[in-house]
Structure formats: structure tokens, C-alpha cells
């Protein structure tokens, strides 16, 4: 057993739902107890889809157990087919139904429905959401494209003269982090290069579309989490090469353009010469000097964490002090980028471990998931979200891709925003002694009566989140930590000196000095201790 406060990934059948909901003309019949229908709200409330996910649940209860759950499954499957008339149906079990071993796949076959029934085996007690999405996509593609597979060993015929090069885009699902916008961005990019995009899957594809995946010249693997297994199978079966570069950031987008150009046998120089990203110039702009060496901690799914770490180091000039992922299947890639950037990798799906690491590293910026956003808020650190798990605010109304050159622009805006602007930083230093300018004064646009806003007040985004699910007003748990009698005391001089430090770094200076004093058994912090600590922690 494993103690979990929050989870980064849902169970594997939620991954299957992300594939089913992304596609059209496909239905998923899930053997599951009452209550598992909660997963519908992920799609209708977080992603704000205007339709229900194409999922029918058996919602069995205790009274059904041992008597006729198999019969219940068959009836549910038949009724779902009759009502929704899909091109194909996937059948499977959630965690509880897996234990009662009714074999939905076998039951599905016996019904003799007039459409293909694809059985899914998703072991809920070993695997998680991303694996479930990947396995589901793989099983569907095998089922539908597999029928058109050439004889093993058949060489792929050359593209006929005069036919444009073509590819499929693989990986985008429902409930993905910016998948909606990435697909638009990369499709545009490929079309500008003169490459036909034949099928985008699973997002927007029908089972019939999957059947013609083998027609394209190569596959673009946008999200390896969901598509790599499938792309490797297509490579073996149809001789279709696949991309290995995920185009997040300017450098990766350039590399991606070169990679697809090589696969398509075309010249990419026109596209590379007309590069549309503002990131390179903004990053070289003189006001960005203050970004140099900002300490950044990166955490997310494997693909986004690796990409964000490289972009942070190479395109923003940050110091990446830690990088990690909750998805063990990407541990190797994450460890490699950690080594490349000279920091330690953190491979864990325990939210409390991530919190401990961030608290220990004290970065100036966190690039993480919604979970890290909450950690960062508690610790008073800026944060930008770079990866699933998602939240209603990860579905902005405007187009906001992560990939391609426009995606790089979006990264620039969203990562720099949480940091204090450089010029403001200078002004703060210049005016730090000004009577109007101290931490109790509050923002000038609130007028004199306004007191300094609490750090812990919930942001509008949190209110939006609560509103989305009707949760009660935020309140914070009482902390168990009591005043420790061994805490060092501040001498009046040192306390005065501390107040001269700009308020936005004063908390950090206080903590560092106290840590320094504690570690050395200093009972009273003097001005000397303060500056000893400052020198100690100076980079």
C-alpha cells in the first residue's frame, strides 16, 4: 500500500477515456462500480467539453455482485451500441471490476455486435493514466490499421512522383496540456513546409481514420507518453519512420523542422529563415539580463519536464537547480537532462517528496504542474505551469500552444511573468528606504487605507477552480509546528539591519540567517551573523 495525499495521474482507465473522448464515432463501455462516473466531470468541467464523454458505465452495486454482473455488462454493452451506434466499441474494466474478473473482452465477443469490439486490459493496480492512454491507443491502432498491414518484410514503396510528402500526427488526447493548440501550431508548421497531414490521432480521428494511418510517409510523435509505443509499432509494421524531437522551445523547434524535412526529403531553409519566434530577441534584450542565473526547479511529465529544463537553461539563461518527473517510464530521459545541466533528478509520484525538494532547493521559479503551483504558492515562490495534470485554467480561451515558434513565445510570456521585472527590481532597491515604500504599505493603486495583501490569499484562479466544482471557500490547515525554544533570537541591531533589506527578499534573508545560526548553534543573531549568513549563502 502507498499513502497518497494527491496523485499526479489517475488510474489507467482514465487514460483510456482520454483517448475515447478525443476520438469520434468510438464508444467505451466500462465495467465499473457506481461512483466511477466522476471521471466524466474531468472532461465536462475541467476541459469544458459541451458533450458527455462517449463512455457508458455498468455502475454495479453490492446487490449485483456474485449474481449477474456479467449479464449486467452484456446488457449495458448491447444498449450502448443500440443507442450510440458507433463505428467501434472499446470494452474494459475499472479497478474494482478487474477484481471480479468478468472478462469484458470475452463477453463482448459473445454478443456478436455488428461493429468491432476492442478489448482493453489495463491493470489498475500496477499502471497509471498515461500508460492507460498509450496502451489504449496502441490497441486501437493495431485493431484498425493492423488489418491493412503489408506482409512482414515488404519494403515500403517509394512515394509516387509528384505526390506531396505526408505524415500523421500522433499523441494528442482529450484532457491534455494544450494539445488543442499544439496540434493547430504543428499542423500549420508542417503545411508551410509542404507536408500533408493525413491523420491526427487520437484527437479528432474516427476508427476509420486509424485504418489509414499506414498511408502516410512518416509519423510525427507529438506526445511520446501516448504515442511512442504506437509509432514504434507502425514503424515495424508499415516501415514508417517517426520523429523523436518534441518541438518545445526555439532550439527544439528548429531541430524538429530539420528532422521532418529530412524524413520528407525537402529543404527546410525557407521556414528556418522566416522564423517567427520573438523569444531569441526578447531573451537577448538588455532588460532580460536580470533573468541570468535565476534558480529554477522543473517538474512534470517526462516530455514537458525535459523540454522545459533545456529551454530554461539554453533559451532563458536560468540555472536549473532540479528537474523531475512523476512518470517513471521517462526516468532515463530526465536523468540524462539532469546530468547535462548539472543538477539532480527527482523521480517520484509522491507529492510530499516534491514539496520537500522544492523547500530544500528554494528556487526562485518553479516550472511544474498544478500541484507544484500550490506548493510554490505556499512557499511564496513564482510558478508557471508546464505540464499535466490539468486544471480549468489550463484551457485558456485564446490560442496558447507550447510547441512550435508561437509556443516558444507563449513560454516566454508565461515563465517571465511570475518573476519580478528587472527594472522594477532596480527601482525597489533604489527606493527601499522611502517612507511610502515598505512592506506594510500595500500597492499604491489601492490607496492609503489598503494594507499589505496577504501572501496566502487565494488567487482568482483558485476561485475559478472552486467555482468550477462548487468547493467551499479556501481555508488553510492549522500547522502542527509549535514555537521551538531553541530558535535563535534576533538582537535589536540585527533586527534593524534586517528591516533595511528590501521586503521582497527579507523573508528569505530571515530564513537563511536563522538556518545559518541554528546550524552553528548561535543563540543570538547579531549584525555580524546576518552578514556571515549572507556571505555563506551568496552564490
Amino acid at each position, binding site marked *: 500500500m502507498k499513502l497518497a495525499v494527491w496523485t499526479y495521474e489517475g488510474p489507467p482507465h482514465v487514460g483510456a477515456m482520454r483517448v475515447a473522448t478525443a476520438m469520434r464515432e468510438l464508444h467505451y463501455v466500462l465495467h465499473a*462500480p457506481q461512483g466511477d*462516473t*466522476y471521471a466524466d466531470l474531468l472532461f*465536462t468541467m475541467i476541459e469544458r467539453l459541451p*458533450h458527455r464523454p462517449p463512455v457508458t458505465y455498468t455502475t454495479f452495486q453490492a446487490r449485483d455482485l456474485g449474481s449477474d454482473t456479467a449479464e449486467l455488462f452484456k446488457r449495458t454493452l448491447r444498449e450502448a451500441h443500440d443507442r450510440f451506434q458507433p463505428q467501434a466499441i472499446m470494452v474494459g474494466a475499472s479497478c474494482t471490476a478487474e477484481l471480479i474478473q468478468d472478462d469484458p473482452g470475452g463477453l463482448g465477443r459473445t454478443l456478436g455486435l455488428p461493429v468491432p469490439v476492442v478489448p482493453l486490459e489495463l491493470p489498475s493496480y500496477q499502471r497509471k493514466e498515461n500508460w492507460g492512454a498509450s496502451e489504449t491507443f496502441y490497441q486501437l491502432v493495431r485493431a484498425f490499421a493492423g488489418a491493412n498491414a503489408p506482409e512482414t518484410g515488404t519494403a515500403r514503396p517509394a512515394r509516387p512522383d509528384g505526390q506531396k510528402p505526408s505524415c500523421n500526427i500522433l499523441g494528442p488526447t482529450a484532457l491534455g496540456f494544450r494539445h488543442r493548440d499544439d496540434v493547430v501550431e504543428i499542423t500549420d508548421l508542417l503545411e508551410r513546409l509542404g507536408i500533408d497531414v493525413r491523420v491526427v490521432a487520437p484527437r479528432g480521428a474516427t476508427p476509420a481514420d486509424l485504418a489509414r494511418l499506414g498511408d502516410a510517409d512518416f509519423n510525427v510523435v507529438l506526445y511520446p507518453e501516448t504515442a511512442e509505443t504506437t509509432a514504434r509499432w507502425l514503424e515495424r509494421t508499415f516501415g514508417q519512420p517517426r520523429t523523436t524531437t518534441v518541438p518545445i522551445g526555439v532550439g527544439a523547434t528548429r531541430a524538429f523542422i530539420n528532422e521532418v524535412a529530412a524524413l520528407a526529403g525537402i529543404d527546410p531553409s525557407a521556414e528556418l529563415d522566416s522564423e517567427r519566434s520573438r523569444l531569441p530577441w526578447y531573451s537577448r534584450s538588455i532588460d532580460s539580463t536580470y533573468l541570468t542565473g535565476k534558480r529554477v526547479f522543473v517538474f512534470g511529465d517526462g516530455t514537458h519536464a525535459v523540454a522545459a529544463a533545456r529551454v530554461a537553461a539554453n533559451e532563458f539563461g536560468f540555472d536549473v537547480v532540479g528537474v523531475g518527473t512523476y512518470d517513471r517510464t521517462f526516468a532515463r530521459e530526465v536523468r540524462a537532462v539532469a546530468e547535462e545541466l548539472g543538477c539532480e533528478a527527482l523521480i517520484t509520484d509522491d507529492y510530499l517528496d516534491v514539496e520537500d525538494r522544492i523547500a530544500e532547493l528554494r528556487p526562485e521559479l518553479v516550472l511544474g504542474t498544478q500541484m507544484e503551483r500550490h506548493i510554490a504558492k505556499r512557499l511564496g515562490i513564482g510558478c508557471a505551469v508546464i505540464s499535466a495534470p490539468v486544471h480549468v485554467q489550463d484551457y485558456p480561451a485564446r490560442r496558447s500552444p507550447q510547441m512550435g515558434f508561437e509556443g516558444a513565445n507563449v513560454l516566454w510570456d508565461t515563465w517571465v511573468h511570475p518573476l519580478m521585472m528587472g527594472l522594477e527590481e532596480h527601482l525597489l532597491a533604489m527606493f527601499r528606504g522611502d517612507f511610502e515604500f515598505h512592506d506594510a504599505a500595500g500597492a499604491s493603486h489601492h490607496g492609503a487605507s489598503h494594507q499589505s495583501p496577504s501572501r496566502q490569499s487565494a488567487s482568482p484562479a483558485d476561485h475559478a477552480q472552486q467555482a*468550477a466544482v462548487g*468547493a467551499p471557500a479556501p481555508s488553510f490547515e*492549522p500547522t502542527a509546528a509549535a514555537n521551538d525554544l531553541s530558535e535563535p533570537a534576533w538582537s535589536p541591531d540585527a533586527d534593524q539591519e534586517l528591516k533595511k533589506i528590501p521586503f521582497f527578499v527579507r523573508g528569505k534573508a530571515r530564513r537563511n540567517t536563522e538556518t545559518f545560526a541554528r546550524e552553528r548553534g548561535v543563540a543570538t543573531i547579531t549584525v555580524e551573523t546576518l552578514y556571515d549568513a549572507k556571505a555563506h549563502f551568496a552564490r
Partner: protein
Amino acid sequence: MSAVRQSSALPSAGCDDLPVLRERGQREVFCGLTGIIWLHRKIQDAFFLIVGSRTCAHLMQSAAGVMIFAEPRFATAIIEDRDLAGLADANDELDKVVDRLLKRRPDIKLLFLVGSCPSEVIKLDLSRSAERLGRQYGPHVRILNYSGSGIETTFTQGEDNCLAAMVPELPAATPGEPGLMVVGTLADVVEDQLRRLLQGLGVPEPTFLPARNAADLPPVGPDTRFLLAQPYLAETARLLEERGAQRLAAPFPLGAEGTTRWLKAAADAFGVSPERFHEVTDRPHQRATEAVSRYRDALEGRSIFFFPDSQLEIPLARFLSEELGMRPLEVGTPYLHRGIMDPEIALLPAGTDLSEGQDVDRQLDRCRAATPDLVVCGLGLANPLEAEGIATKWSIELVFTPVQGYEQAADLANLFARPFDRRTRLEV
């Protein structure tokens, strides 16, 4: 059609001819684990440890959207493959998890081990675990267990099971000393208002189950009368009756009239004079009636359709028809306990269709055919219905928001008026 239209087989006081549509099909409702979201806010030194799967943990954070809590007082002990394969002893594993948890949270006085679908299917006996752990960590930490599983409970029934697990722990009341207990989780502000009203009536000092602290267990015995503040507490009521307490039958304290009737049940049981009753209730009753009437224009004559969710549907339909002139079309409830609900059903307008259980696709068909002005439904259905042009109200807000009592009657009316207000404003 597997559904049958039949009269209730449950014993009840009158109205036996009431037709109830019984449905058995896909249920679009939460399981009982979801009750932890409000129970852990109410009992401030209790921790809820779900023994379940990754799905349970995912449900809790998705349904609650409460990741803003620093470290919530609930968590999941996720059963893994090695627990199922017998490679690890599930009891030893649970002990380790509880040990880690209680070391981390020394402020916890009451720990609930909460059963889930998988823990019940593998027949993990959490009552024995609770006993064993209770010997180890008691008396500082009391350890109880209940089931919040979807195979046993629908949404609010999780609270019923939680309170039912507390009933055997309640101390015996002093014989001959009359007592009044209010049963069901209420927001603190509502609890305080109702306490002041009951104190004003001069009935015995009311106690509340659950109380805000684990140690404040209300006493119970043959001289205890109790009022249900929530309609979904059939099992808790049964166990209280087994300990000799008597339930005071009453409508629920929703709306000005519901609150008055609820208080009247207590007043009559303890022989409060009509003068005293009027003296205490007239002013707040009038205040509530006036405040509610401000929403009458927005709601009068509008039709409303309830999907089953919290078992609050029937009392809400009664409030909306009686005090605001709305027209309930179908009122769905996950479970209909006639003994508890009869006083409410008697107040519904003639021609209201009642349904129990659910077959969601068929109910959606009926809903579209009925073309209601407002649909009360869960989060999985609301946006899809809105996209079809049907106004909805999220039922979950009705259990997370303080809605009981005189002072909240207008807030409750406003929850139903707001969807209409919004539609009037929008020009996009």
C-alpha cells in the same frame, strides 16, 4: 424497458398509492467517499484514510477541487498489485501507512478507516483493523471505520455510514434527563443559528452529531429525542433508535416553512407553548419569507427537473414549489426512504413525478421531452445540457453551501434564481 412503474413496497404512513418510477441502469452519481469533503471540514480533528485504489484518490481530488488545502485531513492508502498477489500482508501494510500518518499528524484525535469498492471486494475487514489499531493508538486517537464505497453507498450515504459508525461510541445519557440531538452535518454558522432558536424555545440544550471536535460526542439514551437535519441519514437514525432514542418526524429545515415545521416538531415534543413558539420564530420566519419572496418573480411558474444526487431533491422541490411557486416535473432521488420522506412528500404538489435510482440515458430522454426551465444535475451532465440550451443548477453546490435555516432561505432561493439571472444578462 427494464424499469417498472410500481407502488412503493416500503412501509410508510399513508400515500401507499404514490407512483414511483424505479430505475436500474447507469447511475451518474458520486460514491459515498465524496462526503469526506464536507465531513473533514466539519470534524476539525478527524482524519479520513480511504483504503482503496488510485481511482479513489483521483475521485477525491477531482470531485473536491481542493488542492488548495495545504495538506488535507484525508488521504488514500492505495492498494497495489503486491497487496493483491499476497506478496504483502494488507494488514501489515495498512499498519505502516497509519503509523506514518499519525506520526506526521499528531493533532489527529479521530481516524476513520474508510472502505472502498476494492477493499470490500477483496474483503479487507477494516473493522478488525480499526480495533487492532485502536488498541495501539488509543486512547489518544480513536479509530473507527465505515464504508464509503460505490457498491454500498451513493454520495451522501457516505455521511450516513460515517455517523452510524460513531453511534456505538456515543456515551449513555443520564436516565430520566430529556435530551435533544440534531443529526447531520451542518455548516457551523447554521448550527449556531439553530442552536440559538432551540435554546430560545426552552427545549433541552441541543447537542449535535457530528460535533466540531471528535471528543464532543453527544450522549444518547431512551430519553433522547432527535431531529434529522439532513434527509439521507436512515442508517444513523436506525442505530440511534436501537439505543432507545426517538426520532421526531418532520420536514427538513430548508426554506422558511421547512425550518418552522422542523422547529415545531421539537417544540411539540417538549410541550413548548404556542405563544413561546411564535415569540421565538415569528420574526426570523417573517424575515426569511420576505427575503425569499424577492426571488419569486424570477422563479414563479418555472418548471424544474431533478436528477438524483444527494437525497435533498424532495425537500428542495417542496421548498421551491411551496415558497417560490416553481413547478417540479420529475424529482429524482438516488434512494427513497418513505419513513423519513413522507412528511415532505405530503407537501409536494399533485402530479409531481417521483423517480428512484437512475438510468441516466433514459432520464435524459425524459428530461429533454419535458423541456424544463431548469435542471438540477451533477457536474458530468451540466455543461452538456447547457450546450443543448437547457439551464442547469449544479446539485453539488447544494451540499457544499450553507442552505438550512431561516437566514439561509434566501441564499437557497438565489442558487436557483442565478441561472435565470445569468441568462437574462448574457448577450453572447
